[in-house]
Each structure stands twice: as structure tokens, then as C-alpha cells.
């Protein structure tokens, strides 16, 4: 756990994330306008999206189901909830209020298990509608000095789930791991495509610092405009260092919203909380209380797919994978393959090692477990060297087939050990100077002999075996 630029002996960084995820529904949260990314401006709209007089919201049941899926996946309590109006004027907010959930969110009090085993608290995950998009033309692209602004309401009314994490994270790495894991969960349950670059997953980051050992949190700043995991880490590092510098210089941190600037790598004041917005929340009288039937919740729970944390646990428990392997293999969607391969008789450790190092190709997910298992057994039985096994595996991923046939086709067969003995003896006799250096302990010369053997055997020899033979002859 490191935060560049911050003396970690003295300071602790506290991070809490608010993630907005666009839900993958066909239509918007409260109307039949289509929920689709992109498109000509103002084409995915209808009366409600425009905030026309007389239009009324009707809740999208599918959005509620997706919210419940996420809530259950995040170990939240799914509750009776109320939609409220958050009132503020902005040109891309068609009604000049946003329908959100305030004191009674649909999901509350959950947690997310990170690949490291760390548990990060989830305060709530509530439903709300998205705003439109403004493009400010001229004057540096900010609303205040723009010449004019263009408003696109395609995104207005798209269902969002705002997932508010507790301030349980302590480093950029933890923050990144949290967002990656959350994204994996959202994708796994089919709630969102989790694309940060398309804005379907947006991260606001609350950062504060406190002297190590202190109980109370420091004053926090909220950072917006973070568009990638990389920016998230950079923004936290910059902001933490800025706050430590302020405090060290005898100044104080002002609670405010700050804007991350990707170009200059800094955060800048967006608006100060001191003139705090008063959103005048009140229950939306156009909507009724949302009280999902417990039976419905249980049906949704029963239909949830295995989640990343559970899948990692299976790899650790059943195959003896390390945490790191489990995290990597689940992320690459290779856990099912590994389990099936071991099921088909393969030795787990070797199976996991291959999957970890030699199966980065996306097509590896479609490998035939039986073929993979047979390959692992051939290698462990000495029928293939590690190098050969890797070659055959690549071929299996590329074209499929039978590992025995592929090995035979490539002329891979186990070397007769006497053949290898005489080959090594011959090389020593032909290269006395190099042998002398090897005997004097020059490790670099080992490669010379191994290379020669490989060349002579067209790669069929096992490098480790050759090294063993050389060492045995050194005396």
C-alpha cells in the first residue's frame, strides 16, 4: 500500500467511492424512450424526457430488478424505498429536478469482497435518473464563459444505480481494486456493461487524509471527472499529496468538489460546499412507494449467477490456487476451464500454472478441458518438456485437436536419456574452454551448452534436465 508523494509513516489516506452505473435496460427509468448510448442528439427522447407539461413518470420494472440484482450481489438489504425529487436548475436537467432516492434507498448496508480478501463496506445503492449532456462552446468549454451551449437529452432519464461505498479504502491500489471488482459484479449480474470510457460507469472519489493513528476523519474533497482506473489512481495520489501539503503548511483543507484534469494531472476547485446547494428533497408525488414483494426478491436471488468472489473461493478451496491466481483466472474467465480440466483428471498445480502464464488469449476459454487435461498429464509423465507443452497448448488454443497427435506431428517425443548423455559428453569434449569456465562457476556459460543441446535436438530436450547433466559432470 503506497501513495506516491505522501509520507506514509505519518499520514493515512482515506478514500470512499461513489459509483454511478447505467443500467442495461431497453427503455429509460420512467418512460418508454429508448436507453441507448450515442445516436444523433435528441433522438432517444419523449415527452417525459423533455419534461413537457402534463407528462408523468412510470417506473421501469426491469430497472428495479437490475437494482435488486446488484443489491443482492453486494450483500445489501433490499428495502421498501421512496423516490424523491432533488431540485436544482441546470439546462440539461429537463424538469429542473432529478428523480432519485434520498432517505429511503432500495439497497442499503452491504459489502464487497475484493480479490485481496479485503471487505469494503457499501452504504447504499439507490436508483435515480441520469441527466442530459451539455456541450459548452467557446470560453474554455465551461458553462460560465461559454458563448453558447448545446443540450443533448438522449442520456436524460437513463436509469442509474448510485453505489455509495463507505470510506474503507486506504490507497489508490485498493480504490482501483474496488472499482474493478464492482465492475465485475455489475457485468456478472447483467446490470450494466461497466464501460468507463462510454460513461456507463462513472466514479466520484472522496479523499481525505489524517495523521496515522488518528480516529477522526480529515475534511474530505470530492473529485469528479475521473474517466479511467488510471486517472482514479493519479487523482487520489495528487489530491492526497495536496491535502498533506496544505496541512503541513499550517493551512486547512476546505470541503469542496474538485475537478480532475487529465492533462495537467491536477484537481481544481469546481464548487465550494460552503455555499452548499440546497436540493430541497421531498417525496415525488407522481410516484408511489416501491415495496418489492419478498417473493420477487427471492426469485431474483435464486437466479443470480455465481459472483466473482465466490468463483475465486472455489479456485482456492478446490484447486489450491493462490489469491493472485484466483483473481487473475476469474478476471480472465478461465476458472470454469480450470475446474473442468482438473475434473477431467489433470493435476491442479500444473493446470493453474499453465492457465496463469500460457492462456492469456481470449480463445483459451473455449479450450477442450479433456485435451488440456491430457496435455498436463503428458507433461507430468515426462512425455513432453515444459517448452514443448507450451507449444502444444498454444496450438490447442489456436486450432484445437488432440495433444498426442499435435506432439507427434511436431516430432515431440521423450528423449532417450542415454542419447542425451552422449550428446552432452560430446559437447564437453568439443568445447574445453567453455567447459573450463563452466567448472569455474561462470553461470552465464550454462546457456551456451543448453542452447547447443536444444539445437541438436530441435528443442526436444528439457533444459532443466540438460543443466542437471552438466552439473553432474562438474564433479
Amino acid at each position: 500500500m503506497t501513495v506516491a508523494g505522501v509520507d506514509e509513516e505519518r499520514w493515512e489516506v482515506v478514500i470512499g467511492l461513489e459509483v454511478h452505473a447505467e443500467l442495461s435496460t431497453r427503455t429509460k427509468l420512467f418512460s418508454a424512450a429508448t436507453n441507448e448510448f450515442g445516436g444523433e442528439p435528441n433522438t432517444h427522447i419523449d415527452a417525459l424526457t423533455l419534461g413537457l407539461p402534463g407528462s408523468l413518470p412510470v417506473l421501469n420494472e426491469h430497472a428495479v430488478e437490475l437494482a435488486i440484482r446488484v443489491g443482492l450481489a453486494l450483500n445489501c438489504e433490499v428495502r421498501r424505498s421512496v423516490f424523491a425529487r432533488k431540485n436544482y436548475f441546470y439546462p440539461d436537467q429537463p424538469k429542473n429536478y432529478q428523480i432519485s432516492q434520498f432517505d429511503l434507498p432500495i439497497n442499503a448496508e452491504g459489502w464487497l469482497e475484493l480479490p485481496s480478501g479485503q471487505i469494503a463496506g457499501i452504504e447504499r445503492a439507490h436508483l435515480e435518473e441520469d441527466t442530459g449532456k451539455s456541450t459548452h462552446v467557446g470560453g474554455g468549454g465551461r458553462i460560465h464563459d461559454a458563448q453558447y451551449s448545446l443540450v443533448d437529452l438522449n442520456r436524460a432519464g437513463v436509469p442509474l444505480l448510485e453505489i455509495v461505498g463507505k470510506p474503507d479504502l486506504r490507497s489508490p491500489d485498493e480504490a482501483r481494486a474496488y472499482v474493478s471488482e464492482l465492475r465485475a459484479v455489475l457485468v456478472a449480474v447483467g446490470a450494466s456493461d461497466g464501460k468507463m470510457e462510454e460513461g456507463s460507469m462513472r466514479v466520484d472519489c472522496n479523499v481525505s487524509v489524517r495523521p496515522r493513528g488518528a480516529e477522526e476523519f480529515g475534511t474530505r474533497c470530492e473529485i469528479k471527472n475521473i474517466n479511467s482506473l488510471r486517472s482514479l489512481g493519479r487523482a487520489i495520489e495528487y489530491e492526497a499529496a495536496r491535502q498533506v501539503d496544505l496541512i503541513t503548511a499550517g493551512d486547512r483543507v476546505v470541503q469542496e468538489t474538485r475537478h480532475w484534469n487529465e492533462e495537467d494531472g491536477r484537481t481544481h476547485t469546481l464548487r465550494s460546499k460552503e455555499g452548499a446547494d440546497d436540493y430541497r428533497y421531498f417525496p415525488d408525488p407522481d410516484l408511489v412507494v416501491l415495496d418489492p414483494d419478498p417473493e420477487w426478491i427471492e426469485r431474483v436471488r435464486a437466479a443470480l449467477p455465481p459472483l466473482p468472489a465466490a468463483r475465486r473461493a472455489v479456485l482456492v478451496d478446490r484447486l489450491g490456487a493462490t489469491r493472485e491466481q484466483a483473481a487473475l483466472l476469474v478476471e480472465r474467465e478461465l476458472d470454469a476451464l480450470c475446474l473442468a480440466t482438473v475434473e477431467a483428471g489433470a493435476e491442479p498445480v500444473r493446470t493453474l500454472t499453465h492457465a496463469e502464464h500460457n492462456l492469456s488469449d481470449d480463445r483459451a476459454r473455449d479450450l477442450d478441458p479433456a485435451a488440456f487435461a491430457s496435455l498436463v498429464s503428458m507433461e507430468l509423465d515426462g512425455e513432453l518438456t515444459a517448452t514443448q507443452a507450451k507449444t502444444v497448448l498454444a496450438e490447442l488454443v489456436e486450432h484445437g485437436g488432440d495433444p498426442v497427435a499435435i506432439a507427434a506431428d511436431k516430432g515431440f517425443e521423450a528423449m532417450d536419456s542415454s542419447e542425451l548423455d552422449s550428446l552432452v559428453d560430446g559437447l564437453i569434449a568439443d568445447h574445453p574452454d567453455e567447459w573450463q569456465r563452466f567448472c569455474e562457476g561462470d553461470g552465464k556459460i550454462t546457456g551456451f551448452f543448453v542452447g547447443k543441446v536444444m539445437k541438436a535436438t530441435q528443442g526436444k530436450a528439457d533444459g532443466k534436465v540438460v543443466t542437471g547433466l552438466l552439473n553432474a559432470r562438474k564433479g
Partner: protein
Amino acid sequence: MSSDARSLAASVRSGERSAVDVLEEHLSRIDEREGDVHAFNLVTAESARAEAADVDARVAAGEDPGPLAGVPVALKDNLCTDGVPTTCSSRILEGWCPPYDATVVTRLAAAGAVAVGKTNLDEFAMGSSTENSAFGPTRNPHDLTRVPGGSSGGSAAAVAAGFSAISLGSDTGGSIRQPAALCGVVGVKPTYGLVSRLGLVAFGSSLDQIGPFTTTVADAALVCEVIGGHDPGDSTSLPQAFPSVSDHLDDGVDGLRVGIITEMMGEGISPDVAARVRAAADALAAAGATVEEVSIPALTFGLSAYYLVAPAEASSNLARYDGVRYGNRVDAPTAGEMMEATRTAGFGDEVKRRIMLGTYALSAGYYDAFYGKALKVRTLIRNDFDAAYERFDALISPTSPTTAFAFGDKTADPLQMYLNDVCTIPTNLAGHPAMSLPFGVGDDGLPVGVQVLAPALGEVAMFRVASVLESSLASSGPVAS
């Protein structure tokens, strides 16, 4: 010749009269008196003639155009009409045409009604006299020096003047019942959720309810049945049809228990109005009802709670009028200044007053003391009503404290104006049904309305009481001026 909607529809359906003929008769009355009354923001004579001709064509083809075949209807100008300007009597929406019809408008058309125009109202339905219209006040057809009441003053006046056989209004705190009383017609606010609000320009969403103005109780029942019933487009719409009230109009009140609300018979109520309510009580007792006084103390908090809840919701509902997407825009250098200039120029004083009241009531630090407390009072009123309805099937009271007042009488003091709705507001807070029907005249010879209240979904009892009062008045001879 009867000009009530049922008679008109019957004659059109039977081919006895043409819808075009019925329409022309009403249009000629509009030509004659609209200049004095100013019930309409827009008369849609041309499209009405096409609709009427269509009704006639369907009758000629042997089809049934529906229970309101050829009945001219006027629509309050806060009901959306496809391609027809809908202004809410506000400068800010001047010229705006909705791309859709309100559900009630669609249902009226499907029943064969012919829309003759959009009626005047207090801007965004905020007021009790129609004096807050940006396009000038409507005058009471019974006395042109008096207000027609509000906010649905145009719709009430249109029916009272015979411009249309029926009309629709919206009632947030009495905006159908009070003008009905002042104009001497029948006006109904149904149970909240029985009539779809989709396409009604919102004022106080948790209070707003659409209802009819008619000349007879039976017409009111019919229109309610046509416009009511579930609409999936309104989340607060109840999952049921409008109770079949028409079937029970002749049931009488024998055995019904009717209460006179004590709190609405004393201070602030004009004695001649109170006398008409007592006369109504006598008529009900004579018809076999058990009638006694009932005190519902919580009702006295109604006005205060209403003037927090309704403006709070309005402050949010009216935020969308910002000049960005539709309606009038006043240009200014920045987006924020443009919104401010647009709203400053576009809204009238009463609308601004309520937006400010509501914004304040919802503000951080004040919410609990104002809006939060108002919600508690609302619950209290509902509970006290419910307790009363354990003993009574229906309640009666005056609709309005006085008969129609003169222009300018109450405009200087908003509180005096607000007090006009003291008898009607509690029903909206409770979500219950209530209606006003004419029951004689006051000392000044102007119509007095009696209000009949009932518990949620108690429309059948309410209409039974109203129907008996209507017949008792008819049998005692004409009283209205």
C-alpha cells in the same frame, strides 16, 4: 328543449338532432355572450365542426358514437390537447402546443364529445376567482360584475352560460367545487386516483384531480364514468373503474347517515349560505336520511397545511418552465440569467408568491417545521375524516363561504382569497371525493352551492345524496336567478 348532456346525446344517437346542429346552437351562444363572459382562452370552432360532422357520419352509418355523442365540452386550459395551444393562462406557456391529448381528453373524444375550446383559469390553477389569469378575468354569467370563482372559472362559466353542455376542470383545493358553487352548476372532485392526471399540467400533484362541470347530477355521474378508471400512464391511478354511480342515482337516501360539519357552519360562513345548507339537511332528513351535526376539529388546520403542501409541490412542478426547451424565453447573457429573466417575465405575482412559499417550506432547516409538519397534519385530517365516516356515509357543508364576490374584492389580501377554499381544501388533503351542487340562492340572488363529501371511493353515497338534493330543489320550484 333540454340541454343537459344526457338529453343531447340521446337525441343525437337516435338521429333526432344532428351533432352539428347541437354544436351550432352552442357556438351561437358563445358568439352572443363570450365577449362579456370571457370563459375561453381559445374557441376551436373549426375542429369542433369537423368532430361534430364525424359524429353525425357515424350515426348515419349506424354506429354508436358513444354516451356523449355530440355533446359540446369545454376543457380547462391546463389539460393537454394535441396540437392545440395549452397555456395554463400563463405568459410563460403562451403559444405552446402539446404533442398529445390528456387521457381525459382522449376518453371524452372516444365517448363522442365535441371539444369547443380551452377555458380560462387562474394562472397554473392558482387562485379562487380567475383574476390571476394572464389573459384577463372570466366574468360570472349570473352577474358580470362578479367573479366566477376559480381556478376553473372559465369551465364553470362556460356551462353556466350554455357555451357547452359539460366542461372539465381540475381541483387542487376546491378549484372545481368553488366555481361550480359561484356559477350555479354541478362540480365534482372524484377520489384521488380515480381520474388519470396524465396530460393535466401539474400544480400540486398529490392533490390535483380532474372532474366535470355539468348542469345536472346525472350528467356529472356520466362524465365521471367516461373519464374515470385506471390509466397505466399515471402511477397514482387506482387499479379500478370509476364506481358505477349512474346506476344508483335513484336509490334515495333512506337509511343513509349524513353529517353536517360543525366547523364549516360558523365563523366566516355567510348566514344566507349556512341557511341553504340547513335547508339541504332538512330535505335529506325528509327523504329518510339520518342527519346530525358532527365536529371534525382537525379540519381547521387544513388551510395552513394546504398552503405548505401545494406550494411546495408547485415550486418543483413549475421549475421546468425555464425557457430552455419550450414556451416563452427571455434572452440573457448566461443560461442562469436567461432562466431568471424568463421566469420573472413569464409568471404572474400569485404564481411567484407560491413558488417562493413552497421553496421556503422545503428548504434545509425549515423542512421539518413546515413541509414535514404539514404532512403530519394531512395524516391527522385523514384520520379525523375516517373517524367521522365510521358514523356517517356522507357529510355536507357549504362549498364556499359566500356567493360570488365582486372583482377586486379580495385581490389586495391573498389571505382573504385563500379563505375562500376553507371548506373545500380538507377533502383534497385527505384524497376524498366531494362535489358541489346548486341549492338555491343567497340574499343577493346569486347561486349557493352545497358541498357533499364522502370517504375515499364513497362516490355512490355522494351521488345518492346529491341526486336527492337536486330533486328536492326541483320539486320546490325554481330558485336560481
